[in-house]
């Protein structure tokens, strides 16, 4: 008995009263979500939405300009496509971390990779939509005396809308998913609580 000593207090810390769900370590506990909504989930969700909208918005703007350039001047099509493909090849974890020395622990660091990833989906979709206008429609438009600009705004762009919307849908979903990983560098968005929960105590 000489080598053994009783602990002064309980070995397991007192976490207070948890629900039955928590105590039995169930897979998902709504009560826990409810308890932590105000201080954890709601702000994280809003940040996540903000991050997604910002990234998709900026990405759409850049993709739109690039797609118009490639549409007007065919030679730019392949290199711009290759560039957007290449950006998507960079692992997101690496890219977030690589940017920290450049832009610091800021939201900008999170947004730049997310924007880069949207290009991969948005640029080719916008370009394909613009190029997908049937040739006879363009010919009749030209024959009727629409100027180059009028053909773009009144014919090509409206007819590209379905392809553009499809691209936006995929880009948004992908961004929501990848934005979670952004929390590797900064506690921001829904990734924050996930990484925190994954830390050893």
């Amino acid at each position, binding site marked *: 008995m000489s080598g053994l000593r009783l602990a002064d207090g309980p070995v397991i810390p007192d976490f207070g009263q948890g629900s039955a769900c928590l105590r039995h370590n169930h897979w998902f506990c709504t009560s826990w979500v409810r308890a932590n909504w105000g201080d954890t989930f709601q702000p994280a969700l809003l940040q996540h939405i903000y991050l997604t909208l910002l990234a998709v918005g900026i990405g759409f703007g850049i993709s739109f300009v690039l797609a118009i350039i490639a549409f007007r001047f065919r030679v730019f099509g392949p290199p711009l496509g290759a560039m957007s493909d290449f950006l998507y090849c960079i692992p997101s974890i690496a890219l977030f971390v690589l940017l920290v020395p450049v832009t610091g622990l800021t939201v900008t660091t999170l947004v730049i990779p997310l924007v880069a990833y949207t290009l991969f989906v948005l640029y080719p979709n916008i370009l394909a939509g613009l190029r997908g206008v*049937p040739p006879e*429609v363009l010919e009749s*438009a030209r*024959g*009727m*005396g*629409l100027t180059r600009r*009028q053909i773009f705004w009144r014919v090509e762009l409206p007819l590209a809308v379905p392809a553009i919307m499809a691209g936006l849908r995929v880009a948004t979903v992908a961004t929501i998913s990848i934005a979670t990983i952004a929390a590797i560098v900064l506690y921001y968005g829904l990734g924050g609580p996930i990484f925190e929960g994954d830390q050893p105590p």
Partner: protein
Amino acid sequence: MPTEAAELVFDEATKVYPGRDAAAVDHLSLTVPAGEICVLVGPSGGGKTTALKLVNRLIPLTSGYIRIDGTQIGDYDVTELRRSIGYVIQQVGLFPHMTVGGNIGTVPRLLGWQKQRIRERVGELLELVGLDPEKDRKRYPSELSGGQRQRVGLARALAANPALMLMDEPFGAIDPIVRARLQDEFLRLQQELRKTVVFVTHDVDEAIKVGDRIAILRQGGTLAQYDTPQRILEHPVDDFVADFVGRDRALKALTLKTVGELELAPATEDGLPRLPADTSLRDALAIIVAERRDALLVVGPDGSPLGVVTREDLLR
């Protein structure tokens, strides 16, 4: 740019595509009088469509001139020129994202017409081409049949009351029955509108039916013959033209006249097959052959007998 039917002149018009030795259209000279339909016909490679697109400058001329009412096409602003020329193509090319009304109103909108005026014009045109001015204007091109689409295409081309119409195989993609009806309606419209029309087709029968004059182009874009259908069928200038219009050109010539236009003998015999006066000589002959008769009774629209036409009358 005139809005009344204009005279169109090709004067040594030539097109050589870059990188090609041979011309697509070679020193083409012909005059389409105001208010007439000129059909360009010929084998593929004859430059029919190229010649047509030279007029609204979708294809630039290499040399020579094209004049509309005496003014060279190069002297017009290209947009203005195109807006004042109706253009109809085989695949129609309606804007799929616009309603029928939106499509027809395209050029008037570009020209800055008032909304109310465009509305009225669209209704007027839909009625003209045999569509419903209220119901059909709200439909989308994907909801229309091929024949209806081409009607809308025609209405769209007519929207700003152009002086000149260019039609590139407008009925080429439509089944024969609807095509015949559209041709008839187009000719009826033309009676009313009297536009100057350049009409491209590869179908000799269509050319004969539609054209006031026919220009036959041969491979390499040279003009083989430019004449009325009657003269082309009766006096082809060379073997190429004779071959192109076909061995049955004498029969085709019979389609140009109706039995009502012949001098008819008074009706004496009873029991002859009755024939409306607007039947073509060719159809009359077909009936004589089929029924093994020597004569037919020609009747007016009200069914009253006008006289008798005999086999000899038809073959004369």
